[in-house]
């Protein structure tokens, strides 16, 4: 396993193990996530890629039987240290899920909710600005600017997912984790999300879990291949998809797995 070092290193994981009860889901994973690249996690179902993604903002804390070992840092700070404020952490490391999950509130409120609870807007005018900026960055503003008071759940699936991305962006995160953000979307909505990922790259460190290898190839610059809870290979996406070093990676991406 080569560790790529970057001058824009955002998160690091060292020797991470994850257990659900006595079942080990992740074994000794070490990886670096940097600001300049979109990092894709690929691998067959049950390989641990989503589990590992969730360790990056302590989403596994919500699973009673889950236990995480090893070290994960954000800007050099151990996110599992006792001094870490988990709510603050999840604002800094936002997450977008497989199924769009807007709150049953207005489009405006969906975006404003996070900044409000984190005290990020001092006035209504401030909040209006945050909402517009977030919706613009999520590529949704033009489609919803005249109906901000309508329910977020009334939007199409693709729009809902971009609303969720706007909601994640609104609290000004540093890292955005995406867990199969397009698997419930049609190809056009998928293309819009992929274009959005491309535009957000560099502003946020982005990590995306995807089952769609073409998507990993299209949106990421770094790809990590997981298998049976271990990180098999991590490297440049262009290398992984043209000339992977590991036979298991090759068998998976060429459709010979299993």
């Amino acid at each position: 396993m080569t560790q790529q070092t970057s001058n824009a290193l955002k998160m690091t994981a060292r020797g991470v193990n994850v257990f659900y009860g006595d079942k080990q889901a992740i074994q000794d994973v070490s990886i670096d996530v940097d600001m300049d690249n979109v990092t894709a996690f690929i691998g067959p179902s049950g390989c641990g890629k989503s589990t590992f993604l969730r360790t990056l903002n302590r989403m596994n804390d919500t699973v009673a039987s889950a236990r995480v070992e090893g070290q994960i840092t954000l800007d050099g700070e151990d996110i599992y240290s006792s001094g870490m404020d988990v709510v603050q952490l999840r604002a800094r490391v936002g997450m977008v899920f497989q199924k769009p999950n807007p709150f049953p509130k207005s489009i405006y409120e969906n975006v404003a909710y996070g900044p409000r609870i984190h005290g990020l807007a001092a006035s209504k005018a401030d909040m209006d600005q945050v909402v517009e900026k977030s919706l613009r960055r999520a590529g949704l503003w033009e489609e919803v600017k005249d109906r901000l008071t309508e329910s977020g759940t009334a939007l199409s699936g693709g729009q809902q997912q971009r609303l969720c991305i706007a909601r994640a962006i609104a609290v000004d995160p540093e890292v955005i984790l995406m867990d199969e953000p397009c698997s419930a979307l049609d190809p056009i909505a998928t293309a819009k999300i992929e274009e959005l990922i491309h535009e957000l790259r560099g502003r946020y460190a982005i990590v995306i879990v995807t089952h769609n290898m073409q998507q990993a190839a299209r949106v990421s610059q770094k790809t990590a291949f997981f298998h049976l809870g271990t990180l098999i290979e991590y490297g440049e996406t262009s290398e992984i998809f043209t000339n992977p070093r590991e036979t298991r990676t090759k068998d998976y991406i060429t459709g010979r797995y299993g």
Partner: protein
Amino acid sequence: MATTGHTVKAFDEDLGELRAFVSEMGGRAEAAINEAVAALIQRNVDAASKVVANDKRIDEIEAEVERLVIRLIALRAPMADDLREVLAALKIAGVIERIGDYAKNIAKRVPVLAEEGRSEAGTLLAAMGKAVEAMVHDVLDAFAARDPQAAAEVWARDKTIDDFYNSLFRTLLTHMMENPHSITAATHLLFIGKNLERIGDHATNIAEMIYYASTGQQLGERTRGADAFAPDAN
């Protein structure tokens, strides 16, 4: 090197079809070299015109390979060694088409030479033709077996062909100096030698493509036969 088949069996069938096309093209090109050189040695104009006519089929198969490769890329989205192999097949088909053209060009010169007497250059060309044909044969075997070592072995043989060509050049030059009446025939024979030498180069190019397709690594820089007469020969 594929250890197991693809989960989608139709993908394996497509790849099999692609390999079969390339192998058939290669077999036809190999036969064209053999028949063109034999027609030359025997001054057999009919056999030569058959080589010219048969080249059409090689061109047709090349077009089929191109169609199949486009379909494979569009429908199967090949990755890693599959992708390298599909692209290699496309490029190899293009190179074999050129080899077919060189064989055809040799055959086209036979009627002119049929009027001329025989020379000892013919013996050299016959041997050179055999060596070149064997290279094409062996490189196609390496392709079918996806054997990078066998490909590298063919690749290293190109120097022999260059040496043949240099001997032929010297022999024909001597002929022309001694007997200016032989210049027409000797020039044609020299072009034929050059065609065979180019076929050898193409066989080494195919070897490089096979090596890259199966290993993901490039073969190094090839040592060429010394060519005292053409400073920038390739």
